């Protein structure tokens, strides 16, 4: 039996962040329904403050199988907004590279760990599942990621997203990072690739082979800069090796629908 890989589709969050795309709520709901029918495990539907609660209410009414998640910054204010939307999962984006922690946020590692504790605690107290994304993992110190993964596990989190935020990973480096974390910490890995060097698909395939249980994709690979891992291409390339739970006959309709919207 092939290993099961869960597809997380982020067309409605990271995909929509591509400049030039701005979808109406009814369009986003329509795409979410098609993703649900297609067999996507999780739909990352948006971020706090972008759409109001009525959007998530509508999603909860219409989505039959997929889990609905919200992406949030590691900010108590944003997380409180996310909690009100009652998603199945809240994903916290945690910067882990020194360039992001020190240069962008002007904070330090202690602050990162302290904030994770507060944020994960808030979400779990609301009985919402939490996943934590290692932002800019490709340029981060492995020791710090392992230490952070351990902390998350102790707090009750179980899924760590390795985000190649600036899209510089190679397949061998992807394999190395995932294996190193899995060797040291008993967590589940989600892989989130970007296509800046034309390797998002290759890295995602290798990510799945290296032990990631979740792979992030978007329809047409839409997303920031050169985009993310293309859902159809991933299904075509990895479908023989893994049980992806995707009904590939539904993909063309989904692509056509999105094409007409953007």
């Amino acid at each position, binding site marked *: 039996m092939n290993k099961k890989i869960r597809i997380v589709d982020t067309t409605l969050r990271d995909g929509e962040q591509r400049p030039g795309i701005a979808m109406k709520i009814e369009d986003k709901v329509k795409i979410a329904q098609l993703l649900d029918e297609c067999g996507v495990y999780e739909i990352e539907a948006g971020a706090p403050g972008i759409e109001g609660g009525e959007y998530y209410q509508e999603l909860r009414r219409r989505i039959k199988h997929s889990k609905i998640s919200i992406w949030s910054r590691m900010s108590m204010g944003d997380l409180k907004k996310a909690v009100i939307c009652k998603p199945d999962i809240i994903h916290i984006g945690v910067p882990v590279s020194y360039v992001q922690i020190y240069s*962008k946020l002007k904070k330090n590692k202690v602050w990162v760990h302290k904030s994770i504790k507060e944020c994960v605690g808030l979400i779990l107290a609301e009985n919402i599942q939490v996943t934590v994304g290692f932002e800019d993992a490709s340029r981060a110190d492995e020791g710090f990621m392992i230490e952070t993964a351990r902390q998350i596990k102790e707090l009750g989190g179980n899924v760590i997203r390795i985000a190649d935020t600036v899209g510089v990973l190679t397949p061998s480096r992807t394999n190395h990072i995932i294996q190193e974390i899995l060797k040291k910490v008993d967590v589940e890995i989600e892989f989130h690739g970007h296509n800046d*060097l*034309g390797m998002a698909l290759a890295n995602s395939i290798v990510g799945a082979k290296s032990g990631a249980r979740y792979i992030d994709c978007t329809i047409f690979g839409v997303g920031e*800069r050169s985009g993310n891992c293309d859902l159809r291409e991933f299904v075509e390339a990895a479908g023989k090796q893994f049980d992806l739970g995707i009904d590939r006959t539904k993909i063309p309709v989904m692509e056509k629908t999105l094409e007409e919207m953007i």
Partner: protein
Amino acid sequence: MIKIIDSTLAMLDNYLPKKEQLLQFCSYMKEIGIIDLELSKYAYKIMGNLPSGYRFYLRIETYEKKSEYPGIYRYFVPQSDAGEKTICEFQMNDVKEIVHLRSKKGSGYIRIVGLDDLLCHDYALTIKEIQKIFRGGTVNFCPENACHCATALAVEWFLAGGNEVTTSFASCGQRAATEEVYIAMNIVKRFKPNQSLGILVQVRKLFEEIIGTKLPLFKPVVGKQIFYVESGIHVDGILKNPSNYEAYPPEKVGQKTEIVLGKYSGRSSVMNKCQNLSLKLPGKTGVLVLLECVKELSVRKGSSITDEEFLVLYKEVTALE
């Protein structure tokens, strides 16, 4: 030392490129630092006297045909034992076919073409096995792109100790993209770190002129809009320090960061736009109101908003202050 043979000029026959275009392409490649170029017979014929300062490669059916194409540095000859100035080429459609290569052990210079789905198998072991078989000789790896992984395979070939790959601009003819392999090696292995790739914009324009169609706006490395940024978090990060969200400076590949206003914009974007358009910055509340107007208009029109549209919104909002 690694070597990239760019095979774009062997892939454009259907578009009937002109001599000037082919020569211009050669010149651009040289400026980037690539002087190894594969030609098609058509390109060879059209170009006439081949320009100096390059190493040209040509694929011929048999070793004997070599004399019909003088001036070529090396000839790719399919499945043939390498003779003088030739590179023996093997098409591998399946990873299992690698075993056949064992009988070719000892060949001096070969090219392996294909292996599109290698990444779905144990690619690291296969690459090692190929390099072991031909230890002492030269192997040029030319992964094909049916599984959209050719760039990754070419890069992995280099990272595993391989010295040569064949690529093509924008993956034309289903090969690894020259520009992607080049910049990936530049970032990962500091390959030619001081080389300016600014000319890539001109290469893209020339390529689009030859094929008569535009490349996707978000194509890695050369897409016209890959450095457009809208999301508030990213804009804020880039304004603080571009390396927060850009793997390499856009200027390196002849492009620049463009801050676009739309549904995902944040306060920083609005303030930056006011500054760029030399507009007086509204008060704190004004910025927030302006931001909401930007988002609302963006959703209504289903895309980003233009400077003209922003100016109208700015006037409306500031008139109330």
